[in-house]
Structures are given as structure tokens and as C-alpha cells.
């Protein structure tokens, strides 16, 4: 990866989430989304948060990204307070989000999308940005589609371009919100390669356990709403990883541990749903 070598990257991107709670209060109906949630994410760690749908994972991600505030606690990035109860974080290019359904701008070509960050941030000429983007794309095996619009490439390809667009800004943290829903396994390999080369801190949200263990170094299993951490799993599978991991004994053991923890939560969620319906 051209953008920053491993040593400089891993000195950035340490996230501390301390006793964070979030209450949604639309029309006075208080909904507790996250309660007293704490995480210490080391710089350069691939952290995956797993939990049932609607449990408040995205709430946490949005707070880090600066899309909304939190009700209690604080979140720090590299020792600096990012947000607390009184102050919402400002969105910035040090924490780039890759969205659940993708957010490449349909009206820009692939190249225009990838250069978007450097161009709006300034300090670099358009030509430099284009050259950098071309280099980035070809490093990631995405050459030949620069002038295509997002609608002209496959959804897996789109997601890769979006990761390239994020990496162009040399962010401290990559925030990924269930980015690979209904996409093929190759995209996972793609992200693993990007991670191995860049050693960026990754905050990855999913409801898919297998995906979590396959990708992550640390897996945080969340409870149902209000979300807090139920179990933390250290995934000791060595990197670089590829599909062979999926049949290794340590993967299967971790998966089993995980499933038990999550199943319990799913049952609780189901019971809670039943109660709400009644």
C-alpha cells in the first residue's frame, strides 16, 4: 500500500469506547439502543462487532463516524476525545465509513469517486489525485474500470472501489457497516489483503459469525438491545488468511463458542419480540 507504511499506520487508530450509552428519544418514546458499552481497540486491530440485527451496532459506528451523538460515556481516538455526552464528533476523513448498501456516488465515474476525498480536501492537484487513484486501483486489482459508472460494474466490484475510495484518504480507522451483505467470498479476501498490507484499524460490523471469525482478530459479541458486550473472542488464527482457514480446527472451535453465545442472545431477542407482539 502506498499510503503510509505499516509502522506509521499502526501508531494511529486506537479507539477507546468508554461506558457509552445511547438513548433514542423520538416523540418522547425512549429507546435504549446501547448501554454502558466499553471497548479498547488497539491501533491496527481488525475488530469485528457481531450481534443480532437491530441490536445497536450501527449506533456505535455512527457515533464514531460523527453521524450522531451519544447520551453518556465517551469515545476517544488516539487519546483525543472524539465525542461525549455533550459533544458530537465531526465527520472526518480520518474515519471513513463503508456503508451497508454502498455509497459510491452514482453520478461520478469510478475514478471520480476514488479521487473525491483528496479533491474536496484540497492540497493536491487534480492530476496528482488521479494518478494516485489509478495507482491505488491497480494495486487493488481494479484497473480498467476507471471510466465506468458504478451502475456499470458488479456489486462486489463496487464495494471494492468503495474500500479503495476510503483508503485514498489514509484514514486512521476504517468503519465498515455490514458491507458485504449478499456478496461473494472474494470480497472478504480483498479486504483481508487490504488489511494485511495497510494494517489500518478496522471496525467491522456484521451479524454473520463466520464472517466475523474469518476476518477479525478480536470479535465482540453484543447482546440484544440495549446493546452491551457479552463476550470478547480473541481469534488466534494467523494471518495472512485465506479460504483454508474455514476448515481449520481453530476456526471450527471458535465458531462453536461463538454460536453458543449468539444463540442465547437470539433466543432472548426472539422472546422479547414475542412479548412486544403480545
Amino acid at each position: 500500500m502506498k499510503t503510509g507504511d505499516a509502522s506509521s499506520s499502526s501508531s494511529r487508530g486506537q479507539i477507546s469506547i468508554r461506558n457509552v450509552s445511547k438513548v433514542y428519544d423520538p416523540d418522547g418514546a425512549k429507546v435504549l439502543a446501547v448501554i454502558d458499552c466499553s471497548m479498547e481497540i488497539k491501533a491496527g486491530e481488525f475488530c469485528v462487532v457481531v450481534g443480532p440485527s437491530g441490536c445497536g451496532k450501527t449506533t456505535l459506528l455512527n457515533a464514531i463516524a460523527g453521524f450522531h451523538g451519544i447520551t453518556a460515556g465517551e469515545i476517544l481516538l488516539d487519546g483525543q476525545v472524539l465525542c461525549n455526552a455533550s459533544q458530537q464528533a465531526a465527520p472526518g476523513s480520518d474515519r471513513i465509513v463503508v456503508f451497508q448498501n454502498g455509497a459510491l456516488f452514482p453520478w461520478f465515474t469510478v475514478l471520480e469517486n476514488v479521487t473525491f476525498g483528496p479533491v474536496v480536501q484540497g492540497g493536491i492537484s487534480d492530476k496528482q489525485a488521479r494518478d494516485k487513484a489509478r495507482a491505488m486501483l491497480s494495486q487493488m486489482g481494479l484497473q480498467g474500470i476507471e471510466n465506468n459508472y458504478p451502475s456499470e460494474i458488479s456489486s462486489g466490484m463496487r464495494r471494492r472501489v468503495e474500500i479503495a475510495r476510503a483508503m485514498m484518504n489514509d484514514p486512521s480507522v476504517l468503519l465498515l457497516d455490514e458491507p458485504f451483505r449478499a456478496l461473494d467470498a472474494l470480497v472478504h479476501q480483498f479486504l483481508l489483503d487490504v488489511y494485511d498490507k495497510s494494517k489500518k484499524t478496522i471496525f467491522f460490523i456484521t451479524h454473520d459469525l463466520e464472517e466475523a471469525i474469518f476476518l477479525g482478530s478480536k470479535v465482540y459479541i453484543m447482546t440484544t438491545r440495549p446493546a452491551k458486550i457479552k463476550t470478547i473472542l480473541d481469534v488466534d488464527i494467523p494471518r495472512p488468511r485465506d479460504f483454508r482457514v474455514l476448515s481449520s480446527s481453530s476456526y471450527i472451535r471458535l465458531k462453536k463458542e461463538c454460536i453458543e453465545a449468539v444463540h442465547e442472545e437470539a433466543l432472548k431477542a426472539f422472546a422479547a419480540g414475542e412479548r412486544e407482539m403480545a
Partner: protein
Amino acid sequence: MATGSKQGFNWVKLKKQVFSRTTYRGILAIIVFTVLWEMCSRLQVPIVGNVPPPSSVLKALGQQLVSKSYWASWLDSYVRILTGFAIAQVFGIPLGLLLGVNKKARDLIYPVFEIMRPIPPLAWVPIAVIFWPTTELSMMFVTFLGAFFTVVLNIVGGARSIDVRYIRAAHSLGSTRADIFWKVMLPATLPSIVVGMTVGMGITWAVVVAAEMIASRSGLGFLTWQSYVAGVYPLIVIGMMSIGVAGYISSAMIRLIGRRITPWLRTY
């Protein structure tokens, strides 16, 4: 992947389209329609038989095509259409964007807008004739109204339905407010602007023709009405068809512009 977005014109595709079964069927349909129309007239079928037959229309058309006043009617209508339409875009697009993006502006302006909007443009003709110094200006004003409300309404809808993900992504990538407007909101709204223009152009023709019949001394609408008054029936049909062709040309122009400014919506 081979279909690059910025390639030259596709001649093979055009050829295929022109010499297609659909084209032949279309031509056949027009011939059958013309023959039926001629027969209705010759056989004195009640009501439809009163319409001048294609043969006499064609004969009259031959005279019109070399007549200066016929083309002057085209020109007059087009000047009204294009002026009114262009001014509607100049005012409508910024206003629509403002209303779509800014809640305060929406709260303040929308009520008045909503009171004015349901008034059919033609209901404005009398007052327009009174307050504009010339009939020409009043025609253009009424044409302007026809396109204006449609354009604004479409843009407000488009601007308000922008997916929040795009805005968040742009923020996250370090955009300023100006970047968000120019690089996200405006392009995201362009498809709605094109729709507004397309619909607006249709309304504009309907409005100008009727307005010309009521209050003008020139234009294709006037030509049609005048032919009725003078009892030159084939010319009525020529007037009608000219309006149809003129409307079609205008729509084609808008489509062309629309495809130009929203290239990402082109499907191959």
C-alpha cells in the same frame, strides 16, 4: 466491462434500431391509419367523415410548406415556448433546490407556492394580458407558469429524497457544505430536473396553443383557430399536426439534453 461510458457513437446499434421489426410495424400502422382516415372521409362516415381527408390535407400542406406565414407561425410559437421555458428553468431550478435543501425556506415559501400552483396557467391569461405591456410578454408569462410549477415541484421532491448515505459519505470524505451542494445534492437532483423539464415542456405546448387561440394574432395555435374561423378545414388539420410535430421535436431536444447531463443513467 467492455462497455466504456465514454465511447463514440454506436452506429451498429442505430442501424439495428432503424431496420428493426418495430420500425416496419410502425410504418405499417401509420399507412393503415392514413388509409382508414381517407376511406372514412370518402364514404361519408358520420362525424369522423367530416374531417378533411389526408389527400386534401397533403395538397394544402404543399402550399403551406412554401408559405412564409406558415413558418412564421412556427417561429412565433417556438420563441414563446423557448423563452417561457428557459425562464422557468432559470428561476425554477434554484428555487426548487433551495426549497428542497433548506427547511426554513420551505416553511416560508411553500405555502404561497401551494396556493398558486393549482391555478391552471390558462386562468392567468386575462390578468397576464392586463399587467404585461404587450401580448407577447403575456404569452411568454403564461408559458413560463406552465413549466415553472412542474419544474419546482419535481426538484423539491428530488432534492428531499436524496439518500442520507451519500451526504454522510461526502461528509466523511471531508466535504465542505459547498462540496455537498455542488457534488452531491445537485447531481443527485439532476434526474428530477430532467423529469421536470420533460413534463414541463409538454405542459408548455398545451398552454401556448390555448393561449394563442385566446389572445394572440400569431403562432401555430392561432393558425389552427384562424383556419376554423375562416372555414379552411384542411389547414386546421395541418395546424394540429404541426403542433404535434413541434411538441415532439421539443421533447426530443429535452431528451437529448437530459441524456447529456445525466450520463450515468444511460443503459447499454
